[in-house]
């Protein structure tokens, strides 16, 4: 691998029937990311189950319960590397009762692969997956029109799906959509170019993943630095050192930049940007660094350092697209802990504005319950201000989770509107 190779995270959503597991198995197998002992294990299992040949889908089976039931329940992470990139796959189930798992897998993805069965075209599940990808602002969507072998590799079938998809996707906010006709089972256009679909001029899936431009996926404009912890060595060599440790959420910070600490509003200048290896002139997302300032200011975890000429909004009343993740529904007017970057406050859901039907994208203003897998627009009031950006502009400073203090569980995830 080369030193400048990047990491690309993508998500796949799908159910047993649309060939998702086969596609992942095919990607791993054809890119030679499967080890011989793994192959041996699934060859044996395939035989035991009476399958013809090796069932590539078995690579993605994880927990005992999942193997028994033959479905993916949770998000599973898979890894493979090619000479061009390292990939992390967040493999998620596709049924509506696992919407929360799809949302989880999508939250960190650069790209989403949406599988469409060429025989059936765009169905409810396609719309659901596309909506979630757009809601979570995954920058790149690749629609794989699968099972082309079952429609005689016909260009018509492919075009029909594209038309159907474009018809409904005009309602979604996605920057980059591509379409690839594939057969995961036979390997057409997955890693290797299909010989049977010469009418398709585009690149196979892997090549697309290897070359798509992802450097611009992170916001480079709005400099945001949530403070995770304060480093005070109090050692002889660093007696007065006071470093603010964190990961740059977005934008670029340079030594000498005039910065404002929020929420206090104090201003100072960046004195040094430190790492163990060297001191830096600048730091950009997503680097983990420690920063010192010219002035002695009281700063602690939960504060955010930003460039003085570009500040986030400080708000206590926020509108959020909320996905409910927990078995227990939301309790009316209950208080939750809200977590936003390194900040934690208390919050109350003041109002449910509407709930979205994730299959039709219709809004329901009557149903105010927040149950597991529901996606709703809500109004939240926090006890103290949060320093927010809209999720569309900033996936890090635009996202929140809610924690139920009676169980300590993460019950909801939200994207700030």
């Amino acid at each position, binding site marked *: *691998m080369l030193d*400048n*190779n*990047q*990491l690309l995270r993508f998500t796949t959503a799908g159910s047993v029937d649309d060939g998702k597991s086969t596609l992942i198995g095919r990607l791993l197998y054809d890119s030679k990311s499967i*080890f011989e*002992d*793994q192959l041996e*294990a699934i060859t044996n299992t395939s035989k035991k189950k009476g399958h013809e040949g090796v069932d590539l889908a078995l690579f993605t*089976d*994880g*927990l*005992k*319960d999942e*193997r028994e039931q033959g479905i993916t*329940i*949770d998000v*599973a*992470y898979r*890894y493979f*590397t090619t000479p061009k990139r*390292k990939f*992390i796959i967040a493999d998620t189930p596709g049924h509506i009762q696992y919407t*929360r798992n799809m949302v*989880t897998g999508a939250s*960190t993805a650069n790209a989403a692969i949406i599988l469409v069965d060429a025989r059936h075209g765009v169905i409810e599940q396609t719309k659901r997956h596309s909506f979630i990808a757009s809601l979570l602002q995954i920058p790149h969507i690749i629609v794989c029109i699968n099972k082309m072998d079952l429609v005689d590799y016909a260009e018509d079938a492919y075009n029909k799906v594209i038309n159907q998809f474009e018809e409904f996707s005009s309602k979604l906010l996605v920057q980059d959509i591509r379409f690839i006709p594939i057969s995961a089972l036979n390997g057409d256009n997955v890693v290797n170019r299909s010989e049977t679909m010469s009418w398709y001029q585009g690149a196979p899936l892997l090549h697309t993943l290897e070359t798509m431009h992802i*450097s611009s996926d992170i916001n*480079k404009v709005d400099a945001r630095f949530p403070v*995770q912890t304060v*480093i*005070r*060595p109090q*050692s002889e*060599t*660093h007696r007065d*050192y006071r470093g603010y*440790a964190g*990961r740059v959420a977005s934008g*670029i910070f340079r030594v000498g930049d005039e910065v404002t600490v929020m929420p206090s509003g104090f201003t100072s200048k960046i004195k040094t940007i*430190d*790492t*163990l290896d060297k001191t830096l002139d600048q730091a*950009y997302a*997503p*680097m*983990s660094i*420690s920063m010192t300032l010219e002035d002695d200011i009281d700063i602690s975890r939960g504060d955010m350092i930003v460039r003085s000429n570009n500040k986030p909004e400080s708000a206590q009343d926020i509108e959020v697209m909320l996905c409910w993740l927990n078995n227990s529904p939301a309790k009316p007017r209950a208080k939750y*802990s809200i*977590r*936003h970057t390194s900040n934690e406050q208390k919050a109350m859901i003041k109002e449910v504005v509407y709930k979205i039907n994730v299959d039709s994208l219709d809004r329901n203003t009557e149903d105010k319950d927040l149950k597991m897998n529901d996606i709703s627009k809500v109004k939240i009031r926090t006890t103290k201000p949060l320093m927010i950006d809209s999720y569309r502009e900033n*996936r*890090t400073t635009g*996202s*929140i*989770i809610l*924690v139920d*203090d009676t169980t*300590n569980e*993460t019950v909801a*995830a939200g994207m700030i509107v």
Partner: protein
Amino acid sequence: MSKYYLNYLDELESEAIYILREVWAQFENPVILFSGGKDSILVTHLAKKAFYPAKIPFPLMHVDTGHNFPETIQFRDDIIKDLGVQLIVGSVQESIDDGRVAEEKGKNATRNALQITTLLDAIESNKIDCAIGGGRRDEEKARAKERFFSHRDDFGQWDPKNQRPELWNIFNGKHFEGEHFRAFPISNWTEMDVWNYIKRENIAIPSLYFAHEREVVWRQDTWIPNSEFLVLEDHEEVVVKKIRFRTLGDITITGGDESDADTLEKIATEVAGMRNTERGNRSDDKRSESAMEDRKRQGYF
């Protein structure tokens, strides 16, 4: 024009540092689980980076089965001295002597499963609320579903079907008295990433990882090192081979591969060409298809 993106190793490093700082910020009394293997050495190296110029602000904890490679213990003691941090040792031998666990019987007996009790006892008696481990999701299918912040109930057990969702980079380490967390900063690293990074950073690792001459016995399709704990079968023969270890566990269960790789450069090249997973030589994982998941549910690393 300068580039404003990180390469994959820098991004993995930054992610791990972020997790380590979150652990420090969210927990009262964390430790790094240190086995002397490359993954826990890597986590320790990353912790050094996370808190620089301060020292690592929490102890290292070693669950000592008593069946160690002598080289591992020497390495552990050196690194502790170098970092100037505290070492906590949980002893499996003591757990046996106290009657908390019973030694396995038979030829392939190991102390692998016994570690669970010792680990949980050490966590409880030292009031540890987060144990940071070097587990990676690519190692094993049960680990593919592990969270960065992984909740354990007050019996130390993992419930894989009832894990907290983890979204974006927001981690929830809230817990009740008596419960603890496991944190896995290098979840997203593969074996190859680990070696490429060790090579790049020139991180010191035990000599066992490099090809060396050693007395070994061919057993269960791998070279098991000769040691005071090894009981030879009649047909087995001790031979000297040039081998290296791909992972380090107990001396009784860790098989070596014949190899000439005696530099980090050569090891990275060798690993890149490997056609078997690294845990393939670990007899603890060969016991059943869900061996790892079963142990993890009970509280294993």
